[in-house]
């Protein structure tokens, strides 16, 4: 193995330092980690998944099954990357995987000696079989996970700064080989917008694996020059298109230190992804030094690297000929082995000229060596033979890369002539060209006609030798015997074969092994390959890091929080914020370092004894207007709206179609045909969508419009026995005094228009003050200066528990009006949504859980399970909301309890298994405080 003094796409004037397992090494700009490792003479780069066999670099691209490494160290490390897919960079640190204590001496390789015991289905049979139960698996799993498997993932967050982009084009060409470049040029020249994406860091595909003076190279140069100045084409290198999704959506990723995800919408797709080479199955075919022929040619011409001094090329088609000649011309001693009896005269002349020895009608039956290849065993017309060599190049035929086309719904069709799957019938917006379409000519054109005549047809040959170490899937250590065993045990379908043996799993997804495995299964079944079947490919084509998928939207950008117009001011006043649905809300106000509990108690006391304000701008607010507005409300709410006067508000409850409670809120009549509906913070969006749905479908006859004004209006709740006095300082004593319960008032404060309604959520005398968003801070400050304290979401929730008002905890989609004690709300004089289904027997049966209050001397918490005896199943009920009541000096909870209204006065056991608590509570009416409503009526 040596680096040539000239040639290739590497820059010998730009050496790069890197390390492998801590050993300092050097490569050149333009190298991949794989080519740099080879150039440093490293044959052995990894240990196999199951048997810890020594493995070397096998391929030059994404089909590489062996050379999986971890890049980077510590939390920045990324495991299981193919060395062939990593462009070399200065300072790169790479580590081999799955070895202990070191790559050279791996004690776990002893498992290889026990290989006959650990064949296909080993885990299932040994640990999960009858008599074992899952207990055995749980015991052994951690040892097995340690011994088998790949690299270790980092546990911290991905520290790279990732980004994502949305793109559009008329044609997306995937693959920057000659076929893709030709098509991109032809189409872009007609004025159509084209994106061409190539996984590799440079364009040219297979042309890069040809000598520097080849016609392919000349054509590549011409295409690149023509594309360079074309404004209609965007060329993306280092970009892997990994997924095809419905309706022309494609996902592509650039990994590396700055991952970039591109979501591309294209009118048409052109698949020019080329073909991948296969090897042969024979014992020892995994020895370091056994490589794919095309890869050896790539290392020779692209990286200026001669991979062996004594090379043997084993082919069953013509694609190894160029390599044999090129290797010989580069100075290697080369033997060509071909099971076909003859070559054409032209082919023979080429080999003779280059000085290649050829063995026709022969095949390789075994590779011999340990940590490196030493010789091969041949079987030919003259009988068995043994040849010394340090490089064995396998040319077992080509598999078109159909993954993307398959994801897009194109079925693969087996072609006997190509010994490969070719794309089946194509939809009008997808084309497949070049080697991906079976056009294996060196110089494909955009028409993509598959080759049908061959000078010397390929010979279907999958397995050339028998033995225990004849591998089909190198990455998963699946042997020909495993495939045979899967068959013998009845796992004959392709999907079962994959799951039983793990053939085709892992980071390479069986790119070099799927077709061979399928051929061996077909052989075992005595059926043809197409009759045996193939799997449909799913995204992603290649591994994508989670960090790249997450993009830039992490941390605070992961979810866009809605903020009240008071957000900044509340924080200035010491508010600690919390998430509430899509909103950030003031949770409690920190005063003198107070914590949640002490702050909440203080805020509750102010509301009960004085006056305080809370930001309720998050309530859903919808203006509704039209001649049929009242009809709409009558249908939506279970209670009636016909008699609501202009200038008054009413509390309403909506049901769902299925009869359960949907939402509640006050709605105001602003004018003759104009209303303002308010909803809970949680259901605002759903209520709006639902109303729009009904108006667009069942209720098209209603002349009514709805407008979302949630963000236009800020809202402040003012509560407490002294709230009228506070309000009087803002709008005058007369107006404050005259506003009746549920009455509306439109006025102004310092130029800010105000809408007031007298309502109460806390049970105290209360008002809600609405103003346009940009005036909210003015109004809040005025209220504070007028003597109001401030309270947050925690106190708001606790106050309503004391009052026994239902909220999201109780309106959870499982409760009816009657469950919540609201049956009297429902009108009998009109039809409304949910009316019929609410009358279902099941929703009115005895034994339903009904809203009750609980009083206890020890803490209660929501989720607590209620029972009158030992807990059976889910118990007799559950706590939906709980708090400490400073007013009453005890712990309170709202709960849903079986036949709860009949249990008032009883003692119930409250189980809180999560906190390991068990206590007793008294069941009673949920209106703990002022059940007659004297306070709120002021």
């Amino acid at each position, binding site marked *: 193995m040596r680096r040539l003094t000239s040639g290739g796409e590497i820059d010998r004037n730009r050496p790069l330092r890197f390390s492998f397992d801590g050993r300092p090494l050097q490569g050149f700009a333009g190298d991949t980690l794989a080519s740099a490792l080879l150039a440093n003479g490293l044959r052995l780069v990894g240990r196999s998944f199951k048997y810890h066999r020594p493995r070397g670099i096998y391929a030059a691209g994404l089909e590489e099954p062996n050379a999986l490494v971890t890049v980077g160290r510590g939390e920045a490390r990324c495991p299981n990357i193919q060395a062939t897919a990593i462009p070399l960079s200065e300072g790169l640190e790479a580590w081999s995987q799955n070895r202990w204590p070191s790559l050279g001496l791996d004690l776990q390789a002893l498992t290889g000696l026990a290989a006959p015991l650990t064949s296909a289905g080993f885990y299932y049979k040994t640990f999960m079989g009858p008599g074992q139960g899952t207990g055995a698996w749980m015991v052994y799993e951690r040892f097995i996970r340690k011994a088998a498997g790949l690299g270790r993932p980092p546990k911290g967050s991905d520290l790279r*700064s990732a*980004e*994502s*982009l*949305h*793109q*559009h*084009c*008329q044609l997306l060409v995937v693959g920057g080989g000659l076929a893709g470049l030709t098509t991109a040029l032809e189409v872009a020249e007609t004025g159509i*917008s084209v994106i061409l994406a190539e996984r590799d860091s440079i364009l040219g595909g297979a042309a890069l694996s040809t000598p520097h003076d080849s016609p392919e190279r000349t054509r590549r140069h011409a295409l690149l020059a023509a594309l360079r100045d074309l404004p*209609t084409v965007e060329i993306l290198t280092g970009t892997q298109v990994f997924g095809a999704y419905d309706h022309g959506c494609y996902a592509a990723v650039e990994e590396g230190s700055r991952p970039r995800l591109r*979501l591309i*919408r294209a009118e048409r797709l052109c698949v020019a992804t080329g073909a991948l080479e296969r090897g042969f199955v024979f014992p020892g075919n995994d020895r370091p030094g056994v490589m794919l022929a095309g890869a050896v040619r790539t290392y020779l011409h692209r990286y200026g690297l001669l991979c062996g001094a004594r090379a043997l090329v084993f082919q069953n088609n013509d694609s190894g000929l160029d390599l044999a000649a090129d290797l010989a011309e580069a100075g290697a001693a080369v033997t060509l082995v071909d099971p076909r009896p003859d070559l054409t005269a032209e082919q023979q002349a080429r080999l003779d000229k280059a000085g290649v020895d050829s063995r026709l009608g022969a095949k390789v039956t075994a590779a011999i060596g340990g940590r490196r290849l030493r010789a091969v065993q041949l079987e030919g017309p003259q009988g068995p033979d043994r040849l010394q060599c340090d490089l064995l190049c396998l040319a077992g035929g080509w598999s078109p890369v159909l993954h993307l086309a398959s994801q897009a719904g194109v079925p693969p069709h087996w072609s006997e002539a190509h010994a490969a799957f070719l794309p089946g019938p194509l939809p009008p917006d997808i084309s497949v060209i070049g080697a991906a379409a079976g056009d294996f000519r060196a110089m494909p054109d955009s028409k993509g006609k598959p080759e049908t005549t061959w000078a010397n047809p390929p010979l279907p040959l999958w397995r050339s030798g028998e033995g225990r170490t004849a591998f089909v899937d190198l990455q998963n250590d699946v042997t020909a015997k495993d495939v045979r065993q899967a068959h013998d045990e009845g796992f004959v379908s392709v999907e079962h074969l994959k799951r039983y043996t793990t053939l085709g799993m892992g980071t390479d997804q069986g790119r070099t092994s799927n077709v061979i495995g399928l051929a061996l299964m077909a052989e075992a079944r005595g059926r043809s390959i197409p009759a045996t079947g193939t799997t449909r490919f799913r995204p992603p084509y290649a591994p994508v890091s989670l960090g790249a998928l997450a993009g*830039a*939207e992490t941390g*605070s*950008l992961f*979810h*866009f*929080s*809605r*903020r*009240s*117009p008071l*957000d900044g001011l509340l924080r200035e006043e010491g508010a600690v914020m919390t998430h509430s649905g*899509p*909103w950030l809300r003031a949770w409690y106000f920190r005063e003198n370092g107070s914590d949640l509990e002490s702050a909440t108690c203080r805020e509750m006391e102010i509301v009960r004894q004085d006056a305080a304000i809370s930001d309720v701008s998050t309530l859903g607010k919808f*203006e509704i*207007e*039209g*001649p049929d507005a009242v009809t709409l409300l009558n249908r939506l709410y279970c209670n009636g709206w016909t008699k609501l006067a202009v200038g008054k508000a009413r509390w309403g409850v909506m049901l769902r179609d299925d009869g359960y409670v949907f939402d509640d809120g006050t709605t105001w009549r602003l004018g003759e*045909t*104009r209303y303002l509906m308010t909803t809970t913070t949680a259901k605002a969006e759903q209520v709006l969508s639902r109303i729009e749905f009904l108006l667009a479908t069942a209720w098209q006859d209603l*002349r*009514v*419009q*709805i*407008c*979302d*004004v*949630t*963000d*236009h*209006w800020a809202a402040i709740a003012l509560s407490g026995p002294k709230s009228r006095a506070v309000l009087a300082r803002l709008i005058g004593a007369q107006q404050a005094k005259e506003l009746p319960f549920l009455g509306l008032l439109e006025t102004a404060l310092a130029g800010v228009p105000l809408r007031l309604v007298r309502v109460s959520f806390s049970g105290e005398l209360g008002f809600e003050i609405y103003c*346009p*968003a*940009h*005036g909210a801070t003015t109004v809040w400050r005025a209220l504070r200066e007028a003597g109001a304290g401030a309270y947050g979401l925690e106190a708001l929730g606790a106050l309503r528990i004391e009052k026994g008002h239902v909220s999201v905890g109780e309106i959870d989609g499982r409760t009816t009006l009657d469950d919540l004690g609201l049956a009297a709300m429902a009108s009998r004089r009109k039809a409304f949504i949910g009316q019929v289904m609410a009358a279902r027997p099941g929703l009115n049966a005895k034994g339903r859980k009904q809203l009750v209050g609980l009083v206890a001397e020890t803490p209660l918490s929501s989720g607590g399970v209620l029972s009158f005896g030992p807990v059976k199943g889910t118990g007799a009920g559950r706590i939906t909301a709980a708090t400490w009541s400073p007013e009453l000096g005890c712990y309170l909870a709202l709960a849903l309890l079986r036949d709860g209204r009949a249990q008032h006065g009883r003692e119930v056991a409250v189980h809180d298994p999560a906190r390991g608590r068990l206590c007793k509570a008294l069941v009673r009416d949920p209106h703990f405080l002022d059940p007659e409503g004297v306070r709120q009526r002021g």
Partner: protein
Amino acid sequence: MDDAILLIDKGEDLQAVLRPCRHLVQIGFWDNRSASAERLADALGFTLPEDGQQVADFPGGWVYRIAPSRLLLLGSEDRPLLPECQTVIGQGGMVSDISHAKLLLDLKGSAAVPLLCRGITLNLGFAGLRPGCFAQTRLHDASILLHRLEEAQFQLLIPTSYAAAVSDWFKDAAHLMRY
């Protein structure tokens, strides 16, 4: 909230300013084809747009037909749109003042399109949204209206409650683009 906030200032490359809407009025008509809509168009002096892409303008404002039966009028100067609309529409539809429900984000510069492409799925390139057109779409969780004034100049209507999150997103995206 009368002041404009300069979110990003990178000269010719990128500028983003967040400011309140002077006048923003949403009008809903009882029907998709409404005589009231035509009356309003005559009164204010615009041509009623036929679709949800073209922006119509009148002296001192723009008109977006945000749905077949809904118009959004954005007044760019001191022309009190609300009373004018209420007078013309009368009982022929619903007129709602939503001036405080949205903030305007002015975005311009050669990096405007690449920046928007980081969050908006619309086609802003070849055969995509043209100058003089608008689109309603989403930026993550926020519903936005994107009006392309010139090739590299946009104005966005952002829900007031999402303005802080959207501003953070713009600043982060600009930062990722190394601005």
